């Protein structure tokens, strides 16, 4: 190979690497375009610091659920019970701390509330993980069953709003900076863990090919249990933030959040088939969903009854972009001989 060919080869190699990197981080240019569009057509959405803060604050619980779903997706699994865990853990803890017709009202300790809600999430996550990894249940069926059980248990426990929760307990969700800080902190922490630790690499390995991961010595069962435990913990934390944001525990808490969480992860570039994607991308997905939702709400051109339909189209467009990205990626990998 002469010098000219080497230079051309290196140029294409660099271009391909750049393209692959761009595809892996596609959410950010998309987000930038959407923000420009919002600034052009619905500028009042981002007109003030308080409006921007509200978008992040209200989206904080969804952010944690997207993170929970992203981690399970990266491991090649998924968790349908995240919203139900958030709702059940918040209701159970609310009944221990708060006031309602049949509340237990055992304590007014915020600390106890934090410990309790997280322990509930952790225990449910461990059970999900053990049933999937050790008993061998299908993740769809296991987490669907828990979705139904937990939502049913929440209704069986309480059908009235739980009020008069300790001020300290609702503080993380009712204070914008704490809620936003918690979520950003969680994304940064998991971004680092997933990229730079053996655990993170093991999650990607299990998500890419569980058998291959097992053959190189990764304890796949332990990884799966850990992933579901993390998912349970993050979901419970989301329940805590929802409680604080609303100020009470409403009977339907945590419902209707599952599909948004999936959408956030997928829009953020996390593969539905495991092993690929970044949690930082998922953060971009959450921000994108929240900005679009708020802009639709703010737009005088869109009727209230049209918003859900338009949300659906936005999701569809994101999925189409995702599919296109996958195809381009496969083509580039085939060209460079780095096919998976």
């Amino acid at each position: 190979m002469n010098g000219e060919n080497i230079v051309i080869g290196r140029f294409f190699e660099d271009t391909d690497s750049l393209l692959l990197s761009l595809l892996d981080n596609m959410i950010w240019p998309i987000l930038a375009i959407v923000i420009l569009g919002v600034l052009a057509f619905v500028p009042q959405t981002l007109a003030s610091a308080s409006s921007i803060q509200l978008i992040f604050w209200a989206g904080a619980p969804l952010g944690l659920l997207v993170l929970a779903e992203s981690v399970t997706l990266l491991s090649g699994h998924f968790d349908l019970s995240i919203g139900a865990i958030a709702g059940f853990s918040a209701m159970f803890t609310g009944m221990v701390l708060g006031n309602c017709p049949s509340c237990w009202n055992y304590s007014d300790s915020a600390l106890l509330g934090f410990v309790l809600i997280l322990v509930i999430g952790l225990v449910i996550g461990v059970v999900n993980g053990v049933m999937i990894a050790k008993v061998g249940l299908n993740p769809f069926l296991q987490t669907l069953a828990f979705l139904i059980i937990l939502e049913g248990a929440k209704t069986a426990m309480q059908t009235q709003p739980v009020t008069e929760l300790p001020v300290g307990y609702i503080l993380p969700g009712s204070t914008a900076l704490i809620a936003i800080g918690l979520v950003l902190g969680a994304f940064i922490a998991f971004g680092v863990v997933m990229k730079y630790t053996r655990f993170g690499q093991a999650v990607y390995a299990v998500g890419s090919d569980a058998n291959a991961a097992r053959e190189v010595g990764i304890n796949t069962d332990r990884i799966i249990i850990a992933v579901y435990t993390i998912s349970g913990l993050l979901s419970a934390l989301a329940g805590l933030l929802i409680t604080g944001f609303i100020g009470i525990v409403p009977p339907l808490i945590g419902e209707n959040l599952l599909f948004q969480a999936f959408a956030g992860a997928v829009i953020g570039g996390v593969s539905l088939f495991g092993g690929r994607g970044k949690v930082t991308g998922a953060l971009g997905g959450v921000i994108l969903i929240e900005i679009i939702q708020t802009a639709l709400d703010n737009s005088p051109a869109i009727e209230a009854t049209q918003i859900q339909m338009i949300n659906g189209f936005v999701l569809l467009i994101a999925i189409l972009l995702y599919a296109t990205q996958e195809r381009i990626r496969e083509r580039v990998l085939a060209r460079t001989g780095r096919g998976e």
Partner: protein
Amino acid sequence: MYNIGRRGFLRAAGTVGVAGIAGCLGDIAGSGGGSDKLKKLGMTSYVRGGAWITAYNEAAKLYAKDQNIQIEVRPNQQSAQKQVKDIRDFANKDFDGILVGVWQTGAAKTAIDYAMKKNVPVFATNADTASTNVPMYTGFSNYEGGEKCAKQMLKALKAQKPNKKPWKVLNIRGSQGNQSANQRSQGFLDVMKSNNDVTVVKTINADYARDTALEKTQEWINANKKPHGIYSGNLSMGLGVVQALRNLNLLFKKGDSKHIVLTQMDGSPEVNPLVKQGMIDAAIDQPNYFYNPIAIAMMKQYIENGHSMDAIPDVDSTVTADDFTVKSGQHKGVDLWSESIWAPAEMKEQNGHPWFKTNSIVITQENADKPFLWGNVWGEA
């Protein structure tokens, strides 16, 4: 324009005077900061509930347009969290007031308090808030609606089945977690409990849904003896019950010995003709298309009087059509709001704030085709 009656006018005039003096003295008390005119209104509401909620929401838009008020309606998407976000967003922007159909009692409290603190008045309609700070809530009493349905049921049973005592009736109720469903069911049950001639053989939870009511009623009747009467807690469940009886060949007009007495909450474009035909004995209807116009008129009054509670009728008073009117307008082929079916309204206190408790209408064969029933107006759309 609406008018607020002599007593209200004097009070309002006094308030304007005091506000004027206060203005001359400057912002010594640190109050104020809100608009002095209602020009832009935010509204957060449920938008996917069928004809009833369409009438409720659309009336707000039509009335606001008549009054040259810009209105922005946002869907709560069945989420207290979404509603909290929207209320805060309205309060952060240039909205002069907020209308809230609260999705879950208590849930919007902190956001409503936040808006009120920013001098953006929040008026609740249809479903109340736990916030003590709202100037007024407008709506009928779900509990009394349930009671009225029970009384209509007893009246019909006495008239049509005097020799069938003790009467056995079914109670088809709405979702367990829903406050209005609980109150509608309880109002019905309490009247029934106080009467020795009737037994509620079963309360069935049909989740406010037509298909669930259809399925569960049909299953129950298949497995048990047919009841003498069935009460349904909303229009969807009532229509599900009618379909269940139709499927079982048990749907007969009143006057027929095989007729099962049906009473229910809510009229509708489908319910009203069934009442007219005698299939349904009575339905209790809300003046839903008045809720938001009443709230807007009161909010305008409240804002223009310097955000003063003096603009709101006193608790424990009765508001009649002579005291207060919602200006009618030509919409949807009728003179909308011309018949004050909301009156008389009782001013009560609920959750620490005034409650403009409207009257409710009993739909019977005699009035089922009248143009003041929302189902006969929005049904033509």
